[in-house]
């Protein structure tokens, strides 16, 4: 057994230093926003939510829940879908993007579900659901909170091999490698629960959500839409990462990027078709199609036709023509559709009869940007250091879990 736990090349002091010049356009734009956001967050905790948000008694949830939590979690759906296709179905084509998707999932959950703390009125009680003060087992929120918590931990377990390769901890690497499949299986299971669960929260808002959106099928619709939302994010994020971090890309990653994108477009076409069938079924089931001739009906059609049917069709033709630009356009459109859909549940089609509407304050937007930018800073820091999109150390390639899980579990 090899007991060496560090390589000669790893030095913590060296790794902590910035690897690029400070004054990049990205830093110049994001640093002031983050600083302002921190000031606003301090204000929010000192003076209450009303000091920075436009939330009201009629609209208790706004941009922070709508974007940070609902949209953010849907976009993080790629981590469970890619894990499922790669580890469970054995689709080897996704090998180069598994790790970066898991990292994205982990950071999304840490930051976006983490941003929930900003929205909690009494954040010092944030862990009450964990420690049993008390367990509100009849609450969908209880289920979602536990699933968020466990899923973030499981994504961390899935990502530990990359950290171990970075610091050269071979023993840790071996230890986590064999629990990897367990983490993957539990992770996918839990993702099914909470991706549907964030929709399930709104089952109780029956009296408030416009009948075109309210449905007993909300959990299923949220689950299915999180699958294509997550994959669209993988496509979108992949095209940016492969440009921004070109120097770090492994040969495997850059040579397979286009094939992977085309494959994802095919999968997205299928999932979006299922989603559309469900949406049509839901209209017929609820007998709400008569409402399509109202202003909210037009808004509904814009969401479903403009940002589901059209991107779905674009994915289909993009995959057939192998056109990356068409596929990327489809991904962006479908992502806009997710924004519209999730915002509808939180404040647009929510309390739709209420004359005074909610719209986010500039301060809410700055805080949301702060969360996104901080996540991107951490992401960049990790990508530049850990073998996420770059080549793995040779010792990890020999019989890694990604090379062949079989061998690892046989070794157990």
């Amino acid at each position, binding site marked *: 057994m090899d007991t060496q736990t560090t390589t000669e090349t790893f030095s913590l002091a060296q790794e902590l230093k910035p690897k690029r010049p400070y004054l990049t356009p990205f830093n110049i734009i994001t640093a002031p926003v983050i600083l302002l956001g921190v000031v606003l967050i301090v204000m929010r905790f000192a003076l209450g939510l009303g000091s920075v948000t436009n939330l009201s008694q009629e609209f208790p949830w706004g941009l922070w829940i709508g974007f940070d939590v609902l949209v953010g979690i849907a976009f993080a759906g790629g981590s469970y879908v890619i894990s*499922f296709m790669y580890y469970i179905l054995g689709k080897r084509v996704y090998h180069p993007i598994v790790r970066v998707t898991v990292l994205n999932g982990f950071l999304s959950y840490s930051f976006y579900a983490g941003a929930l703390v900003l929205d909690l009125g009494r954040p010092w009680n944030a862990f009450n659901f964990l420690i049993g003060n008390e*367990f509100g087992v009849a609450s969908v929120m209880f289920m979602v909170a536990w699933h968020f918590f466990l899923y973030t931990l499981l994504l961390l377990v899935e990502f530990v091999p990359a950290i171990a390769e970075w610091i050269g901890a071979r023993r840790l690497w071996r230890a986590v490698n064999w629990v990897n499949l367990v983490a993957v299986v539990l992770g996918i*299971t839990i993702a099914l629960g909470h991706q549907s669960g964030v929709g399930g929260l709104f089952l109780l808002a*029956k009296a408030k959500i416009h009948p075109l959106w309210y449905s007993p099928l909300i959990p299923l619709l949220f689950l299915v839409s999180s699958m294509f939302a997550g994959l669209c994010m993988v496509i979108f994020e992949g095209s940016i990462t492969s440009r921004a971090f070109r120097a770090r890309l492994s040969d495997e990653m850059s040579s397979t990027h286009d094939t992977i994108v085309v494959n994802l477009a095919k999968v997205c076409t299928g999932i979006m078709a299922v989603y559309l069938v469900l949406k049509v079924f839901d209209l017929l089931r609820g007998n709400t199609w008569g409402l399509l001739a109202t202003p909210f009906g037009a808004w509904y059609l814009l969401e479903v036709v403009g940002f589901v049917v059209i991107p779905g069709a674009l994915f289909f033709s993009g995959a057939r023509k192998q056109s990356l630009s068409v596929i990327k356009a489809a991904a962006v459109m479908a992502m806009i559709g997710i924004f519209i859909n999730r915002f509808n549940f939180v404040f647009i089609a929510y309390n739709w009869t209420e004359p005074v509407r909610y719209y986010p304050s500039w301060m809410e937007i700055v805080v949301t940007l702060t969360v996104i930018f901080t996540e991107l800073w951490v992401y960049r820091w990790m990508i530049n250091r850990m073998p996420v999109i770059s080549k793995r150390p040779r010792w990890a390639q020999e019989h890694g879990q990604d090379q062949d899980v079989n061998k690892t579990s046989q070794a157990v």
Partner: protein
Amino acid sequence: MDRRTFLKTMGIGSGILLGAGPRIVHAGEPLPDAATVLVDTTRCIGCRLCEEACAQANSLPAPDLSDLTVFDRKRSTSETALTVVNRYTVEDAEIHVKTQCMHCSDAACVSSCLVNALKKEKEGPISWHTNCMGCRYCMVACPFDGPKFEYHSAAPRILKCSFCYATRLVNGRKPACVEACPMEGLSFGTRSEMLQEARSRIANAPGTYVNHIYGEHEVGGTSWIYLSPVPFDRIGFRTDLGTTPYPVLTKGYLKTVHGIDLIVPPLLFGLAFLSRRKRDQDKD
């Protein structure tokens, strides 16, 4: 341990870990002896002494009773006014309606709370407790918009009518608003007494009331019930809420998730095993 046993053990283990939680319970049928207030809107004159008594009992800012402009528009309760009276003009008749938390028999807010900070007391009232995280899901869930949040506080509370539970009810006293009403528009008793009283008022004064006790069946029953001379949708009540208790809306879904947590892990292990065996065979 060979691979098959290992996977099987992990599958069953994870199933137990994730799926077996405490059973989901909810209150069910309204209790016949739950503390209940009957509001008779034909008796209310809009003096708002109930608002004043409520503010005093809860140490909230006193309302200005001489200000009659409050009736110009429909008001909602707020974090500083836990009950408000609205005026509706229906066919030249002025009808006044007191609103507050309805204290549902099987409440959306109680089932929505992930830390049980909103509790149904055994006597019937729903009260708020300080282990609340401030997520405001109860506000999203409540069909009557009962819970209100202190947006301008660093240590905000959820505020709503408490039925004067801790301060008066447990000491055998009526809620402050009931005691303050000069018109006997508010009657306090057990649920069965109040329903009986409401029914006899409808029967004894033909033509005075519509034959409907709001809150008898709405959302599974509420602890504040109302009589009205006109259909309830004309005096600000929602008549589209149905008679199903709200917790039922999420019950089936939560059971499904528990099923998923139990069934999916073994399925995934099986699929992973099959896809790998197939790959090994392809290699050979």
